[in-house]
């Protein structure tokens, strides 16, 4: 069974540019999460999809971040325009059952975003 995949693995852009990150969850997983880890700090939640619906987007930093999950399969996270503080590693995770309390979340390898 293929794991969670993310593309690209690295992205280096200049401040003000746009970047789109992609996540392909494990097949059959309805729940898809985006997290971000800034250098040396904890992994922080950004948002949660259940199928194609945004269940919780309380962790999104601001309206420069836009996430979509059309058709309930893969998801994209767009940052427009990017700022220096957006640098970090963006992780995607997926889980089968609804609910973070008891369900195992499987993480992708992350996209390392550097904004210069």
């Amino acid at each position, binding site marked *: 069974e293929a794991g969670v995949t993310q593309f690209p693995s690295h992205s280096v852009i200049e401040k003000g540019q746009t970047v789109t990150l992609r996540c392909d969850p494990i097949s059959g997983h309805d729940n898809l999460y985006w997290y971000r880890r800034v250098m040396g700090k904890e992994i922080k939640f950004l948002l949660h999809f259940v199928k194609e619906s945004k269940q919780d987007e309380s962790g999104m930093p601001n309206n420069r971040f836009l996430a979509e999950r059309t058709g309930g399969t893969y998801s994209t996270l767009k940052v427009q325009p990017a700022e220096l503080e957006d640098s970090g590693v963006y992780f995607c995770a997926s889980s089968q059952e609804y*609910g*973070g309390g008891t369900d195992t979340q499987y993480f992708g390898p992350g996209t390392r975003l550097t904004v210069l």
Partner: protein
Amino acid sequence: QQPVQSPQAVILREGEDAVINCSSSKALYSVHWYRQKHGEAPVFLMILLKGGEQKGHDKISASFNEKKQQSSLYLTASQLSYSGTYFCGTPNSGNTPLVFGKGTRLSVIA
């Protein structure tokens, strides 16, 4: 509420044991343990749901105290492959995403 992990970092020689703690001032709904190696995906280790629960596989085990306010991860007879950053994560309630601790960096040296 973010769980508190301790220690922040630990260095071990191969074969030594380590304990990583994850605690909160309030009862935790559940505790999820992950290990992340540099540049790789966080890998799920185990989940604890009930007070007093203990789980383990191979030489890595974990416990959840009766009050569900602390979980400990035990690494025995450490191997070089155990190196990485260990995170505990917990949801604020049953159906919310995980809130992670700041991580414990474990380095195992020969």
